[in-house]
């Protein structure tokens, strides 16, 4: 292919003039308008008294300053629980779930990391609870845990373990029912991440450890844990925040309004805004919720060491 002289010059100059920034526009605009704007909107509306009446006349909404915030923190419970109460429930829920789910996921990954004949089957089975949509989990949970006529009470009665009339969806047990379902539903995520990490461990490392006389515990300490540590950290961070934000499970399991022991923050904000019609308060609680979530995010980013990426071709 014959190049003209000017063409050769252009090629040598490279792509310096050719910078199609506009490729990022469609996505960027969407994020700006549909994520950025609502974020600002939440902040904005939290400073006003927003109710169905005032919404009709956005330009003249009464300014409330920090009233919504002080209400969130001090107001006694009208529907369900207070902000602080549901925050506590959410923290307990997210914390306990992660505590159970992480060792479970790590153990699960370790049980299938070796090459065996029916490996694919085990791995697929492990994924099933994670794949099943949250709606479906909440739905069958509702019918398993119904008092007396639900499958679980029926089973307990048939096995003679209890009288078969335990309250699962009301009262203190409701928290544990929800926790159990969440654990069942999400350990697959930890398992997936840890499995990916285990698969990138060089066999020779483990062989070396075995040659050095390491038992199973030694192998764990010397090779396995150091290799998956970062992944586990990532999994814990993402997972805890997911449980904290989970709206679907309490919504479906308790058909809208959860009992006070299971009244998580996400549900509280949703109901305050859409059923209590105090949108300003809902926004204020939302801002508080996001601020609280920034803490674990920063902690994770600090621990993970956010550094510059090493490029595959060596350049920076």
């Amino acid at each position, binding site marked *: *292919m014959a190049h003209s002289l000017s063409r050769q010059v252009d090629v040598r100059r490279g792509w310096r003039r050719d910078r*199609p*920034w506009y490729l*990022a526009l*469609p996505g*960027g605009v969407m994020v700006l308008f*549909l*994520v950025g*704007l609502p*974020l600002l*909107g*939440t902040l904005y*509306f939290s400073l006003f008294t927003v109710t169905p009446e005032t*919404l009709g006349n956005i330009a003249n909404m009464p300014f409330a300053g920090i009233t919504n915030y002080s209400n969130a923190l001090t107001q006694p419970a009208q529907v369900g629980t207070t902000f602080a109460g549901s925050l506590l429930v959410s923290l307990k829920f997210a914390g306990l779930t992660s505590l159970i789910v992480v060792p479970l996921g790590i153990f699960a990954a*370790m*049980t299938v*990391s*070796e*090459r065996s004949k029916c490996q694919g089957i085990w791995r*697929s*089975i*492990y994924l*099933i*609870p994670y*794949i*099943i*949509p*949250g709606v*479906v989990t909440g739905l*069958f949970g509702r019918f398993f845990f119904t008092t007396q*006529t*639900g*499958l679980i009470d029926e089973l307990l009665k048939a096995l003679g373990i209890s009288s078969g009339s335990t309250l699962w969806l009301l009262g203190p047990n409701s928290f544990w029912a929800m926790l159990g379902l969440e654990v*069942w539903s999400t350990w697959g995520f930890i398992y997936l991440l840890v*499995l990916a*990490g285990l*698969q990138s*461990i060089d066999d020779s490392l*483990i062989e070396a450890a*075995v040659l050095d006389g390491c038992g*199973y515990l030694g*192998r764990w300490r010397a090779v396995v844990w150091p290799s998956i540590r970062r992944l586990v950290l*990532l999994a814990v961070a993402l997972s805890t*925040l997911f449980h*904290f*934000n989970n709206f*679907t499970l309490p*919504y*479906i399991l308790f058909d809208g309004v959860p009992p006070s022991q299971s009244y998580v923050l996400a549900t509280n*904000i*949703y109901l305050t805004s*859409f059923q209590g019609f105090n949108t300003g308060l809902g926004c204020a609680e939302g801002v508080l*919720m*996001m601020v609280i979530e920034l803490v674990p*995010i920063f902690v994770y980013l600090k621990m993970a060491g*956010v550094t*510059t*990426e090493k490029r*595959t071709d060596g*350049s920076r």
Partner: protein
Amino acid sequence: MAVGSRATRLLPRYLSLGGRIGLTVFALAPVVGLLWLSLMPSLQIINGGLAPRRLSWSNYVNAWTQVNMAAGIAHTLIIAGTGAAVCVLCSVGIAYVISRLWKRRTGLLMGGLFAAQTAPGTVLLLPLFILFVSFQAVLHITILGTYGAIIVTYVSFGLPLSVWLMWMYMESVPEALEEAARVDGASRLVALWYVILPLMIPGMIVTGVLVFIGEWNDVLFASVLTNQNTRTVAIALQQFLETQGGFTQPEYGPLMAGAVIAAVPVVLLYLLFQRHLVRGLSLGAVKG
């Protein structure tokens, strides 16, 4: 490289086998329970009883019409399918700009993308709703309940994860290949289209599948942004549950069958793409 033979085992045999059996029972028991319930006549679900008195296959037939599963699945396929496709395409553009044109302060960007993935939907839903309502009033068009509104919303919320993954995949494509194209006289766009994209197709599929599944499962946004004409599968189920609660003889049988129907496509998708998904996640997570 899978950890394999005798000398490289991580768990003693009994623990490994026992674990597999135990976890399988744990994983599958509720699923069996769900299938069990879906074959029970509605009356029995209400009145209790362990074993189905008769196998109600009719639940599955009724689920399509009574619980609106047919409409629900159709709507969700359109919404989640378009949403995932548009999301992946947009994120390729953004990932290209970050990976090939920006190249600065990537640490900050990574942190930002990570934080964005954890944004609580309940908090952003409300102002989004207000935004749509005001635009509807000002521009005199309908927004809520249209495909457009929910698809665009899903794309926006799917972008953080999508961009993160696409960025990782793009970083693994060596720039030397584009250099070669440049020497041949190609522009950046041409190089992107003919060199980078073909190599990114597996990554794009993985990302697309993950985004699709997330959208299929969404309840929060669909509850507010859809109406009878665009109801997704998740909302069809939830609405049916709500309405049936008022009847003396709620049709819970078809509801359970509907739940099974709602889960099947997603389960199949995951199992089909399982190997790619694990590899894709390891690329994004292990490297980053």
